């Protein structure tokens, strides 16, 4: 294969971003799947649309507004979920539509403002700027640091919530912090994978590996490999076929998922 593609600075940035995003979204995604939070991932990522639109509308950095907005949405979802009268998917369903609605209204109000909507929704490798890379690295370090701090409690809570409580874990706090880690992971992934498709990166690679993994380390490691393969190959396809990077990446992970699924259940 002709590797001219790496001569372009924008492709170098896209690959750097893709590499980091694969690692971070795998680490977080393993728990998203084990905790059954796939729909929360969808909800928070769609909320990012409202966050980005808010940034453009107020004339502030859309990454910053997306961060604040998504953290807020994550906290609200956990808060409403604590009300036992509603099933836990209900607040997600409400908040996620509301955020998209907010985004649609704000963007329509900004007449003549040229926002690359399609890029935000489905990923655009041309859109990754130098400051995006700085943001992604900075936020990834924060995500990983917090993740390492809460890891043991998150692990125990996910495996056996009741006994984690007995062991003294504040399970609601851990839930909230983890939901916020999902929010930050979504934000760093938007440029490459797109708002609509981010959640696939959180869910599909981990779901592909779960039936095969013998232990937790293996699960995390193989999820990273699957994710990296899909993202890197997806970026190549996006470049050569001129298709949205998010679409290519998601279709690849999904293909791998179904192959794995087929074998896993023939066992």
């Amino acid at each position, binding site marked *: 294969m002709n590797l001219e593609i790496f001569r372009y600075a924008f492709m170098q940035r896209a690959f750097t971003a893709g590499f980091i995003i694969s690692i971070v979204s795998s680490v977080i995604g393993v728990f998203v799947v*084990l905790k059954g939070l796939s729909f929360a991932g969808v909800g928070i990522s769609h909320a990012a649309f409202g966050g980005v639109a808010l940034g453009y509308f107020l004339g502030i950095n859309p990454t910053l507004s997306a961060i604040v907005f998504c953290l807020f949405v994550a906290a609200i979802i956990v808060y409403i979920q604590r009300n036992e009268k509603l099933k836990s998917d209900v607040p997600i369903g409400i908040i996620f539509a509301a955020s998209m609605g907010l985004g649609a209204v704000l963007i329509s109000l900004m007449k003549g403002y040229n926002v690359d909507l399609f890029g935000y929704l489905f990923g655009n490798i041309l859109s990754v700027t130098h400051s995006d890379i700085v943001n992604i690295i900075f936020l990834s370090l924060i995500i990983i640091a917090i993740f390492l701090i809460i890891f*043991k*409690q998150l692990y*125990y809570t*996910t*495996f*056996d*919530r*009741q*006994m984690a*409580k*007995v*062991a*003294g*874990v504040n399970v609601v706090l851990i839930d909230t912090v983890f939901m916020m880690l999902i929010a930050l992971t979504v934000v760093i992934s938007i440029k490459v994978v797109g708002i609509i498709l981010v959640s696939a990166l959180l869910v599909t690679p981990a779901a592909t590996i*779960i039936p095969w*993994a*013998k*232990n*937790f380390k*293996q*699960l995390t490691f193989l999820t990273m490999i699957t994710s990296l393969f899909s993202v890197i190959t997806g970026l190549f396809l996006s470049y050569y076929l001129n298709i949205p990077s998010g679409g290519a990446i998601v279709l690849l992970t999904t293909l791998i998922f179904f192959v794995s699924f087929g074998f896993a259940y023939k066992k």
Partner: protein
Amino acid sequence: MNKIIEIVNLYFRYKNIEILTDINFFVSKGEFVGIIGPNGAGKTTLLKLLVGLLSPSSGKITVFGREPQHPGMNKYLIGYVPQANEADKNFPISVREVVALGRYHEKGFFTNLNAEDFEIVETAIKKMNIESIADKQFNALSGGQKQRTLIARALAQRPKLLVLDEPTAGIDVKTQASFYEILKRLNQEGITIIMVSHDIGALTKEVSRIACLNRRLHMQGSPAEIMKSEQLKKLYGYDVLLLTHEGKEDVNES
């Protein structure tokens, strides 16, 4: 001062329904106490109050001289094995790793386990006779093996009190016998045990005291006293023998 558990005038209400009424109950160091009572009697609720998962509506519980929810309580001294095993079914974790979780109850979550911890884990595994399955996936185990693993996790806390909620449900009769052997040995080593069970037949042979609970604490005494009592029949209706019988049938199926 060798009362490990002191429960005085305890009431527990759940959404205005009184589930436990005026419970007064004491357990001394070294006892092996069985709790019996029909379904819905509040046995699980009582144990959850003991380990601090619930707090009393009124009255007082102390375990090792402290209220279970008190921040200064050394909760790792209580090894709890819940009735419903709520552990995640997809979680990739080995038996040894499950047992090792018990160490965090004592050490907290901000240090790593060291060589001494892993020794304690191995000791707990040996005590429960699960060496041969220690590397297996927890989710691939049978009900009885899971139960042993969860007790080993409780032992890895190095508890002074074991609180077991129907640990023999779904375990075959032969395994049950060796299970009681293990519990008796732990008890002889100085661990106080409280155990809820429907299996009155086996329980009466093994424990030093039985308490009959049905929303209230109806009576307590040595197994011989309890078996003689007419109250037991009242408590269960005519089901006492049926219940033990049923228990054994369940077992053969699993």
